[in-house]
């Protein structure tokens, strides 16, 4: 079985996911083309036309719909002989794109692919696709539909996470992200975004609030309290978890992932394809895995996905150097640490989505790219990126640097 290697990885900075966001006036294909062009500039992958460009996109509708990958290829002016396709598993779409690309390489059905992701949450809101989940009353009864924020507060309630626990975690995410930016730890991957006239739109993560303290965060209102108490969802989750007397609404805009626009892309292929392009493999994709659980509690599957992924790689939690656990909500990472016993010194060491934002379909690629950069920077070897996923799923990918050392 051929190994699947990562040769390079780029991402856009993350723009605020609202009308005032720096990327809002662009189109998703602009972001898709930006990362594809940057990746091509750095690797010249288009000289040996990749088998496919696979983009993750959480809500592939409207301007993000109808195959944003192939559209982005053409918009980027890459050869029209490069195909494109999209995958969607909500928050893990990007990581699924990576895993799908790796699987094709491992299966011997492709020797070079681009995996990436795009999401412009400023124009397509989360769950903007529609679908039975949330909309179809019969399905909602069957699947015990729970909105994301309610599930996060339910997880916090069941785990006993207090408001100060989650705020402390969020403050740490902000501090780590600020430190990472100021030390230039993202410089290798982040490519600035320009508009059609070459005007710079954004060159830094716009959502961040460096200097945020736990005290600042404590002042924010609970984001999902009204939905839970007045909208009825507290009662709904108590039907599934009767041990809950009262849902603790601890999550706020400050300790939940930021709503942002962004894109990322990564070049994946065989060792031979790398040689053809004159590229040194940076890491090998050792294993990946999915997990699923009760869709009501929804957000606790990353630990299972990680355990399964590591078992496949013949590794244990102890001999993984770094973890990127998507900060969908602070409780998700706190729960992951409790379940796995992995300490915060190995998790999200450069901050995460609470500080920098979570562009749904692109995040998985960004996490893996960040992980790879940090492994290289610190001379470490192995890492896992994992995300929780809507409707109760989790996806994890394990990578190892090639040749060890830098």
């Amino acid at each position: 079985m051929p190994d699947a290697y990562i040769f390079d990885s780029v991402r856009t900075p993350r723009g605020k996911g609202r009308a005032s966001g720096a990327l809002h006036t662009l189109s998703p294909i602009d972001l898709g083309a930006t990362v594809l062009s940057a990746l091509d500039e750095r690797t010249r992958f288009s000289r040996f036309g990749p088998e496919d460009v696979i983009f993750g996109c959480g809500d592939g509708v409207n301007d993000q719909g109808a195959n944003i990958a192939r559209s982005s290829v053409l918009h980027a002016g890459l050869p029209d002989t490069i195909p494109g396709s999209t995958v969607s598993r909500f928050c893990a779409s990007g990581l699924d794109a990576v895993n799908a690309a790796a699987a094709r390489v491992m299966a011997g059905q492709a020797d070079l692919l681009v995996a990436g992701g795009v999401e412009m949450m400023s124009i397509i809101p989360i769950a903007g696709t529609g679908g039975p989940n949330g909309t179809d009353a019969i399905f909602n009864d069957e699947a015990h539909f729970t909105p994301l924020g309610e599930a996060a507060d339910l997880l916090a309630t069941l785990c006993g996470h207090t408001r100060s626990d989650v705020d402390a975690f969020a403050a740490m995410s902000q501090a780590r992200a600020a430190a990472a930016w100021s030390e230039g730890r993202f410089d290798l991957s982040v490519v600035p975004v320009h508009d059609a006239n070459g005007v710079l739109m954004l060159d830094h993560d716009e959502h961040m609030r460096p200097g945020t303290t736990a005290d600042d965060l404590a002042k924010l209102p609970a984001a999902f309290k009204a939905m839970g108490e007045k909208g009825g969802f507290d009662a709904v989750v108590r039907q599934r978890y009767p041990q809950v007397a009262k849902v603790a609404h601890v999550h706020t805009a400050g300790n939940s992932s930021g709503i942002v626009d962004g894109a990322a892309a990564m070049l994946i292929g065989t060792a031979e394809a790398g040689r053809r392009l004159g590229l040194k493999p940076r890491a090998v994709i050792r294993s990946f895995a999915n997990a699923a659980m009760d869709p009501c509690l929804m957000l606790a599957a990353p630990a299972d996905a990680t355990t399964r992924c590591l078992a496949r790689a013949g590794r244990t939690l102890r001999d993984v150097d770094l973890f990127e656990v998507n900060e969908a909500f602070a409780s998700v990472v706190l729960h992951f640490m409790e379940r796995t016993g992995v300490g915060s010194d190995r998790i999200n060491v450069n901050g995460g989505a609470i500080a920098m934002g979570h562009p749904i379909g692109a995040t998985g690629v960004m996490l893996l790219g960040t992980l790879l950069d940090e492994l290289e920077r610190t001379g470490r070897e192995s890492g896992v990126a994992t995300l929780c996923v809507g409707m109760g799923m989790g996806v994890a990918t394990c990578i190892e640097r090639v040749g060890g050392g830098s």
Partner: protein
Amino acid sequence: MISRTDLGGGVALLTIETAGPVNTLTKAFNHALLRLVDEIVADDAVTGIVITSAKDGFAAGGDLDELRAARTPADITAIVAPFLAAIRKLETCGRPVVAALNGTALGGGYELALGCHRRIAADRPDAVFGLPEAGLGLMPGAGGTQRLPRLIGMQAAADLILPGRTLDTAAALKAGLVDAVVPAGELLKACTDWIAANPGATQPFDRKGWTLPGLDPNTVEGRHFLTGAWARIRAKSAATNEAATAILHVLHHGLERSLDAGIAVETRQFARLAVSTGARNRMRVLHYGTRAARPSVKPDRSLRRIAVVGGGQMGTGIAYAAALAGLSVALVEASREKADEARGRIAALAERQVGRGRLSSDEAAALVGRIETSDSYDATADADMAIEAVFERLDVKQDVLRKLDAAMRPGATIASNTSTIPIGSLATALGDPSRMVGMHFFAPVEVMKLLEIVRADATSEKALRDARMIASAMRKTILTVNDGLGFYTSRVVSSLSSEGMTLVAEGVPPQVIDNLMTTAGFAIGAATLADLTKIPLLKDILTSMSGAGAPTSMQGSKAVDALAKLEAAGRVGRPTGQGLFDYAEDGAAPWPGLAAMFPAASTVPHEDVRSRLLVTQSLEAVRALEDGVLNDPLSGDVAAVLGWGYPVHLGGPFAYIDGVGASTIVDQARQLARDYGPRFEPPALLVRMARDGDRFHAL
């Protein structure tokens, strides 16, 4: 059933006249309608069609008896298919069709009107319009979920269809359920005028370029509405309101398709729902059961003045309800001061009803004026009947009964509002025990529909008739039972409370008990109910319900011990804010001391908690039937729903057994008896039914 006459000028008049007091749309009617519509549509001389009724109302809905007799979704579809076809042919026949709504049009009757191009109603204040099916656990099945939202929008239609809300003529006009209102005498003329002016009438949704008014299910706003509506229903009724779920589903999927496809989606869900256990339980209890439990005695002039002894919550509630029914009331309290307090409480109650718009100020004043309060039994001398509602203790009640016996006219009926004490033992205080009857009211009396009437061995026909007459005047639904400790309702509720407190004693957190019960559809959980009852009072009730020897339902119960421990620790219940829960402004939280007071020997699985709470009630109800306290299962099921908030979709403790199957319940009960105590041993009657494959309810 439906006849055709000529209104002149080529306008055909279809007149509905089915058997019975109102027009009920049976399968036979539906076929007759379809045949007639085929005939008229084929008649080129017809220029327009008016549909009206020969009865006082236009038409009520479909025939519930037929729906109940149906066994499969295909049976249901066969009933509605000709009706649906007839309506579609009418609205697409190329000639104007007008509904002449001479009176009330509900359910299928209103759906027929929706299939007309114009709905003109006679100006009658007593007529109502709409789709009330959800009230019986059903949904509109003749196009109502598709045509109404295409007329007034998804959200407006949902607001009416989900709760089964009907509108009077003025409100129906305003909401767009009818297009015009004219004086009754001009109804047919208004219809023919409209036909003359609109020769090419079509339905708006059959025209090119038509768009759905209001929210579209395939927009963010439309989806947001559907999600929110689902959550509100789900929060209130857990997953027990299958009708609401189905209605939202057909609005969603029907409105994003053509009318014909939408109706196919509606029919599929309607047919599924109509034969579902939940809908059948609702129909049985809410329609057939409450009808059977309505007092058959009409009030007459033999009961004009009643005496009520005791001015507490129950006494004032009874006095209020009696005065509201137009009776003159003598309310007796122990002192002038207490009598005045009681009067104040009644006046406040009337005032609240004025505030809610249920009484006018004049009516409230007249109501209070009908009540005389006194500290003397002399006030009862001219009463036709008395109801005592004093403290629940044999000696206290017997003292009052003796005084009434002395003060009242010989032979006047004396009733006790006891909830547990056998009437026979109270009646020993009277010279003539045959004048004694039990009238167990539920709090708050002015709200609760149920009245449990207890007939002791000695109770005379006259006393029983008097009790029923009062019930009829107060518009109560009655359950007549025979004498025994706790009668029927208190007996079953006590077994439930006892099991709830036994679970607490075994270390099950109170919110688990409450959440599992509300999830099953109960209005309130056993833990919160214990706090509301007050811990010491519940202890007294369960102690007295244990009677001389421990009845089966109390064997192995840890409730009384647990309640005594709580009482000793000062955990009195809701009134002090400290019971099984701590009560604060922002809600109730389980008392943290419970875990130490009642350490869990082992964890009781949630499934066992749930089945213990449900099976307990069913077993005790069967024992009450077996003992002869309860006369029939249907009245026991109706009383459970109306009396203690038993989930109507489960149909009551007897229907619950039918739903699960007697033999499965017997197996479950035996397993519970092995695991948790002999109180779960199934009674012989149930074992026999399991063996014979019997059910409590045939339909």
